[in-house]
């Protein structure tokens, strides 16, 4: 079932947790809600589930208005950040709960419930643990029980709040793969919250990036990574270098490095962002005539498994930045801490302050760059 969030604003007393949020989640997609702590992810999820009421805006499921519906009528599968399993019930009763609380008329027979619970236990690979209590399970197992419990009532879609947040890396990875598989098998719409960008990229068909109660960008993992709508998204999706400069006479000047700006860009301060792996390090000045390389001093070299990270200080602006390269390339270069090298700045993203100053923080818009 598709989910539509229209113009939702939610505030607590004098604090605005969500501001004019609009979101469309198509049927059957696996969507990640990505954002830093406190950005309103849980709040948005709770609003969709009906556990919270918005001051303004509406929520539609398959085009049908659900804004004023009670949680119970929304029939949404919600998995809580800390699972919220019923601690005094065993796993069987936990999973069966949504079925056994139904009114006599709609409640399945005992036999049907048993069958359903066991098929769910098989689905989440926890057969044989039906009689354990939540306190006797590992974190990953509890997570799967919480999922099975939500699935038991055949929800319209699933909302997962940081499903893997409290688990160690290995279990996380297993569960990710398993969730992906489950999504393929059930074809259910799934919206999950995470503040781990890698998890969002790996798992989701579509990523929604949130910050301070607003949706910053919605798109496929590639779009989000390759065409970040603004510096926040850019820097949230991985390590980033920042250079300050100016736009003058159609040229973008970042210290001694110069680039051509698109036509009609007004003059003024500009900020350049670059991923560490886009910094091309060499011992000699590049052959091309374009002034896109700068000289830098190697302050520190860190080995990160297959990657090597250099911490560099530009000789012209004294700005510190990072470069990353494969181990092979590093061995070819034969550099040491203290050496001075040439660094070509590739794939720069330049942002200038937006002329529309309607937002409290200066909004930055991307500028197309050519060399």
């Amino acid at each position, binding site marked *: 079932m598709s989910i539509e969030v229209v113009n939702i604003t939610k505030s607590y007393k004098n604090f605005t947790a969500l501001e004019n949020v609009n979101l469309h989640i198509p049927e059957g997609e696996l969507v990640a809600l990505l954002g830093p702590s406190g950005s309103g992810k849980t709040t948005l999820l709770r609003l969709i*589930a*009906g*556990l919270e009421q918005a001051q303004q805006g509406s929520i539609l499921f398959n085009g049908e208005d659900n804004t004023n519906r009670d*949680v*119970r009528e929304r*029939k*949404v*599968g*919600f998995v*809580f*950040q*800390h*699972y*919220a*399993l*019923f*601690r*005094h019930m065993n796993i069987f009763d936990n999973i069966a*709960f*949504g079925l056994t*609380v*139904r009114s006599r008329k709609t409640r399945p027979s005992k036999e049907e419930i048993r069958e359903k619970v066991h098929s769910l236990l098989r689905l989440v690979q926890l057969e044989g643990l039906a009689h354990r*209590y*939540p*306190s006797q399970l*590992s*974190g990953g197992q*509890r997570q799967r029980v919480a999922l099975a*419990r*939500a699935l*038991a*009532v055949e929800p319209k879609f699933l909302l997962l709040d940081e499903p893997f947040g*409290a688990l160690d890396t290995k279990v996380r990875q297993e569960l990710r793969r398993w969730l992906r598989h489950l999504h393929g098998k059930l074809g259910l719409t799934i919206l999950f919250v995470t503040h781990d960008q890698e998890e969002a990229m790996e798992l989701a068909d579509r990523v929604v990036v949130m910050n301070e109660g607003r949706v910053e960008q919605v798109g496929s993992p590639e779009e989000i990574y390759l065409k970040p709508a603004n510096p926040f998204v850019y820097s949230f999706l991985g390590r980033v270098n920042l250079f300050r400069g100016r736009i003058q006479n159609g040229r973008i000047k970042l210290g001694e490095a110069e680039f051509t700006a698109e036509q009609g860009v007004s003059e003024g301060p500009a900020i350049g962002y670059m991923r560490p792996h886009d910094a091309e390090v060499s011992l000699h000045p590049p052959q091309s005539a374009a002034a896109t390389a700068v000289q830098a001093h190697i302050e520190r070299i860190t080995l990160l498994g297959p990657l090597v990270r250099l911490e560099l200080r530009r000789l012209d602006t004294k700005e510190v930045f990072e470069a990353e390269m494969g181990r092979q390339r590093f061995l070819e270069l034969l550099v040491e801490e203290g050496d001075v090298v040439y660094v070509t700045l590739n794939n720069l993203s330049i942002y200038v302050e937006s002329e529309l100053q309607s937002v409290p923080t200066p909004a930055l818009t991307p500028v197309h760059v050519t060399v």
Partner: protein
Amino acid sequence: MKHVTEPAYVRWSLIAVAFLFLGLFLILPLIAVFTEAFKQGAGVFLAAIAEPETLSAVKLTLLVAAISVPLNVTFGIAAAWAIAKFSFRGKNVLLTLIDLPFAVSPVIAGLIFVLLFGSQGVAAPWLAALDLKIIFAVPGIVLATTFVTFPFVARELIPVMEAQGKDEEEAAVSLGASGWKTFWRVTLPNVKWGILYGVILCNARAMGEFGAVSVVSGHIRGMTNTLPLHVEILYNEYQFAAAFAVATLLAVLALVTLVLKSLIEWKTERKSKAEEDYYFDASGEKAG
């Protein structure tokens, strides 16, 4: 090696002082009650217990507890639920009011009821018209006892419910459970040990209350005397053996209460440890 604790003699003398104090003020009186009760032989003891006035006091005490404890359990659960799971205006006022019976002297509590419902009281004309008697009658005793024992269950439950948060209830409603079913199947089972603990303390106080009940009872033999009042009357009439015999009933109640209390404490301690583990695993960073 450095001493991380006080030297041994300090520890031992502190422990000895504590035990001496307990022995002097708790164990010794308890022994005294039992020896005095049996001083004139088991026959006198049994006769004192089997006396109709004693039996009627026992009955009244049980009746009062049977009414006031369920009332306070119901109220306590409702209040704790409201306070722990919802935020509303006047929450702090409600919390303070719950503590009020602990803050005022029981005698004052009894006097309040006399002022309200006594023959010169505020509600006197109204009660006369309905031909109701509250003061110097059983309803007054029940009222006074309920008032005095009012905080036990609520006070016991509020921290337990607050610690458990709203997550499980929210999970229940998101799975389609009605408010009523959520309460019966999720909220209540989670606090059952807390309730039991509250009930036991509440019951012990309800049966043992003297001050407030003394003011409203009127001491009518065989009619409005509870056990503690009966003990006092017997004592004032120099029937020491009988007074102590009846007092043993209250002493036994106290001992049973203590045992049950420690059993529950032991039980919940084990349970909360398991839950702590659960919570720790569920949210690694929260446990610190």
